[in-house]
């Protein structure tokens, strides 16, 4: 009666059943934690009308790594929820931004802490919360606010996802994850917020029980599928900019 295990043999197999219209969260912050391999597999898989949730749609650097901007260019994306619809540096132009300015994709711009908290809320069964962030700005116009102890706060809703695509450092067969250094970023939150968390893993996947239960960053009950990243060049390991610099 043993159920199928969580370890899968290919990125393609791990993504095969993602339907059109899925709401997908992508981990990562400026490189660490970004699921390059799963994103590349999603480009090949071809699901359409996706809603993509991430901190950014990808950087402006060349050469590019698989990112949400490429999914947009590939006609797979209906909407993006993120904290940057344009680059920080005005002189950088994100590929995504061109499509957005042309009205070919929707976007919801969310402050980064609010984005993190909305994902965390979804994973924690909290449907809505109040935050001081964005009060008095254009983002708060026409929206519900509330004064609590003399300060004005904005009402924000949970941001649940169908799927989370993540990258972790180590995992065991039970799905427990460890991230290394700033690779952690949105990973634990997106795993909680999603019904189906799929993780590309850098180290060989360990047997259940090999990780110290005190040192788990994402418990296995939040993780459904694991794929070990194959060696380069088949697997994508660092950003191409880093690869070039080496």
């Amino acid at each position, binding site marked *: 009666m043993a159920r199928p295990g969580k370890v899968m043999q290919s990125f393609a197999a791990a993504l095969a059943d993602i339907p059109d219209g899925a709401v997908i969260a992508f981990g990562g*912050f*400026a*490189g*660490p934690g970004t699921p390059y391999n799963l994103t590349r597999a999603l480009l090949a898989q071809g699901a359409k009308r996706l809603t993509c949730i991430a*901190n950014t749609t990808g*950087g402006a650097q060349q050469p590019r790594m698989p990112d949400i901007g490429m999914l947009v260019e590939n006609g797979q994306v209906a909407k993006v929820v993120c*904290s*940057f*619809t*344009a*680059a*920080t*540096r*005005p002189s950088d132009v*994100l590929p995504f*931004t061109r499509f*957005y*300015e042309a009205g070919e994709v929707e*976007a919801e*711009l*969310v*402050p*980064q*802490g*609010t984005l*993190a*908290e909305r*994902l*965390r809320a979804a994973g924690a069964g909290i449907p809505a919360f109040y*935050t*001081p*962030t*964005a*009060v*008095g*700005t*254009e*983002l708060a116009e026409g929206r519900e606010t509330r004064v609590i102890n003399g300060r004005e706060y904005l009402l924000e809703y949970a941001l649940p996802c169908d799927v989370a695509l993540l990258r972790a*450092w180590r995992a065991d067969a039970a799905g427990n994850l460890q991230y*290394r*250094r*700033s*690779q*952690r*970023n*949105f*990973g*634990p*939150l997106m795993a909680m917020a999603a019904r189906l968390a799929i993780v590309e893993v850098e180290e060989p996947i360990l047997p259940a029980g090999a990780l110290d239960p005190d040192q788990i*960053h994402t418990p296995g009950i939040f993780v459904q599928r694991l794929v070990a990243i194959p060696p380069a060049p088949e697997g994508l390991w*660092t950003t191409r900019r*880093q690869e070039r*610099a*080496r």
Partner: protein
Amino acid sequence: MSGAASTGWDRQQMADRLAREFQDGWIVNLGVGLPTLCSNTDIGDRDIVYHAENGVIGYGPVLPPGEEDLHLVNAGGQNVSLQPGAAIVHHADSFGIIRSGRIDVTVMGAYEVSAGGDFANWRLAGAKGGGIGGAMDLAACARRVFLLLEHTTRKGEPRLVARCRLPVTARGVVTLVATNYGLFAPTGEGFAVRELAPGIDLATARAATGAPLLPA
């Protein structure tokens, strides 16, 4: 006056001047771009903890190529080092630190700052998209908001203004502004001049400022 040809402090000098204001024991968040330069400043024996939005508490200098830890970046995506006593948390805990008022100062870049302490740094005029990142959380919740910016745009238009024309990041929160011309504090009516950069006189600064400058 000797300042006619001077443009005041260079970028690192602006950052150094602002970093002198950091007090022993502070937890400091540095924004992308110019503010990053503050972590190059020698802080002497002050104990400063640098916090980044992506959950890095206690980072140190940027590491040279070849020595980077590719799993570790600051908020600007630079491969930084860790100081003894550093800790990593996830994004929700990192912004919990921010929203709960634990950041003693956030240093950000900006397009504009007003005499009332409003500032704008997320969307340019005419753009549909913008880049908010962690700026709105930091601006609304850090104990102090310091800004680092060039005194004028490339076209020479003032960035220190009576009222912001661009959509704001937060209102009434900025307490100190360092530019290439000096160090200024919004007062509501204008900007108090805390210090002028070498070669910059009050008349020069006034001519480049869109709100009254109030001598110290």
